[in-house]
């Protein structure tokens, strides 16, 4: 049914249609509306049988999800930013134990400086945790990916994060087609766990493993993600059959056929990228887009195939590997190694910095002329950066950086719109 609905509310409805049996949650912006929505549905009896557990921290949220999933219950939680970091030890355990938990990450920057706005630093910090990570471009895709995620997780007995841009998607009202219970039931079978704790047939889950077997267990986690590379496109095809729309898959291209310059990105910024590319195409520029939906597993083969015929590419990413450059860009470059393709990294949108069409126009044209630095910081205020660097050269006791920069910026930014 078509609805004009907030992204978080739409995801809450989609998760409820997947019949989770345990939801444990701790509030953190910008994820809160999702679990609030689910909490209301459990309380009203709309979502039953389901236990909604208020926990005392994110660490407890993931620990409870591990327990309930190990007991054979379909388990769900959601978090963001510092919340995800606080649960990290349990995040790795969930993957190491092979428990098919589904978690929404409403992507948000990591402090310090504390910042509630969107970028991809939080879930990308967990790229090696063993969790799969799928990135939604729109709220429709966020809805659809959750439905696919439960199936994917349970088929492989591995956990998965569905990543959606905090605020930009979670707090946006837009048109979303919410499927019926019958449609979802026809796609997603009841949870049939590969392992479960049952007092009648006692087993243990979580043995200590020494050097004799640790590598094999870890390798199998990798092998499962390699299986996911096969399974994700298959589940997207089945999804299309059942729901009638394209959603999910590993990667998606746009106007890429004869493109000489390709823009690679993940998440909601793809919309602004596509609008910019349309305008540049009208002016005769041969430019196209590669959207990455599956960040983990990373689809090396598909990324290579999508880029191999272009002349150059830009990875536009909302993340920064401090001391290195791009995070997604590193994987993309690995995918095209040996092709001799020219690749650029563009870091944009950190901590919620707006990514505008005007900035993208400039960036893409510079990329086309191969005038970009290997790593570009889009819309970075160099005056402010240089002023602070100079301050540090002049004064041994130059003080805290964030406070200095806020002082230098004055209230000029906030004075515009508050």
């Amino acid at each position, binding site marked *: 049914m078509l609805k*004009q609905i*907030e992204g978080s509310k739409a995801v809450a409805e989609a998760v409820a249609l997947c019949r989770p049996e345990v939801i444990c949650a701790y509030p953190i912006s910008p994820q809160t509306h999702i679990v609030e929505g689910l909490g209301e549905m459990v309380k009203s009896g709309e979502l039953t049988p389901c236990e909604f557990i208020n926990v005392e921290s994110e660490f407890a949220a993931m620990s409870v999800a591990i327990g309930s999933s190990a007991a054979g219950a379909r388990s769900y939680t959601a978090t963001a930013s510092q919340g995800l970091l606080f649960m990290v030890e349990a995040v790795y355990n969930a993957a190491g134990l092979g428990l098919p938990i589904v978690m929404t990450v409403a992507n948000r920057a990591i402090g310090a400086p504390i910042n509630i706005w969107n970028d991809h630093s939080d879930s990308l910090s967990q790229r090696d945790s063993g969790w799969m990570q799928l990135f939604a471009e729109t709220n429709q895709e966020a809805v659809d990916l959750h439905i696919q995620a439960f199936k994917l997780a349970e088929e492989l007995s591995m956990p998965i994060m569905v990543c959606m841009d905090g605020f930009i998607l979670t*707090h946006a*009202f837009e*048109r979303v087609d919410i499927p019926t219970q019958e449609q979802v039931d026809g796609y997603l079978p009841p949870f049939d766990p590969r392992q479960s704790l049952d007092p009648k047939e006692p087993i243990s889950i979580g043995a200590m493993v020494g050097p004799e077997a640790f590598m094999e267990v870890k390798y199998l986690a990798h092998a499962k993600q390699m299986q996911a590379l096969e399974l994700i496109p298959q589940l997207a095809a089945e999804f299309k059959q059942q729901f009638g729309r394209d959603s999910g898959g590993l990667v998606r291209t746009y106007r890429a056929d004869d493109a000489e310059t390709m823009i690679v990105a993940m998440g909601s910024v793809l919309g*602004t990228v596509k609008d910019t590319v349309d305008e540049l195409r009208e002016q005769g520029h041969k430019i196209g887009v590669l959207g990455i939906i599956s960040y983990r597993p990373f689809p090396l083969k598909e990324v290579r195939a999508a880029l191999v015929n272009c002349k150059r590419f830009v990875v536009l990413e909302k993340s920064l590997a401090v001391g290195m450059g791009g995070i997604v860009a590193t994987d993309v470059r690995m995918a095209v190694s040996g092709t001799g393709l020219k690749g650029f990294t563009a870091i944009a949108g950190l901590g*919620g910095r707006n990514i505008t*069409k005007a900035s993208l126009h400039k960036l893409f044209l510079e990329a086309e002329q191969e005038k970009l630095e290997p790593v570009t910081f889009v819309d970075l205020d160099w005056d402010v950066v240089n002023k602070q660097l100079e301050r540090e050269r002049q004064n041994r006791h130059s003080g805290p950086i964030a406070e200095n920069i806020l002082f230098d910026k004055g209230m000029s930014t906030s004075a515009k719109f*508050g």
Partner: protein
Amino acid sequence: MFQIRVHGRGGQGVVTATEMLSVAAFEEGRHAQAFPSFGSERTGAPVVAFCRLDDKEIRLREPIMEPDALIIQDPTLLHQIDVFSGLKPDGYVLLNSAHSFEQIGLGELVKQRGHARMCTLPATELGLKHVGRPIPNVPLIAGFAALSGMFKLESVVKAINEKFSGKVAAGNIAAATEAYALVKKQMEERAHA
């Protein structure tokens, strides 16, 4: 694409206003995207929210920097921030005030832009009268429907019924209906002036 920017203060239902505008547009079969400016909202602090309308899917995710229409929920913002920033030359302006633009010192702006797309509306008073709270958002949405002709009043009523129920919905519908009539009347008077 038609882009609306709503300015107000925390507690005035700015974000709700854009959400309801998007619902009204959806009720008329259009694509709509509403989103807030994502600040750490506090009661009384300046807040801005956005609504885009189009006949096709809206993919753009940047904030609205060159709006086709402005709804200003609090006239005191005029002294604090540049609410008119980027407004298109033929853009609509709907301001919450019981006074005219001339009375609050914006006579020059009206001279530049002309009367046809500018209107003030005592929205806070309408909220107090019909809902018992000084929340101007619903009267302003209905007033904007009248000013721009972009929505039918009945679509605004549908959006109200989706958001509220019982007495609150009824009060808001009464406020919206009066706001719509007030703006229509102003526009007709000007057309004949």
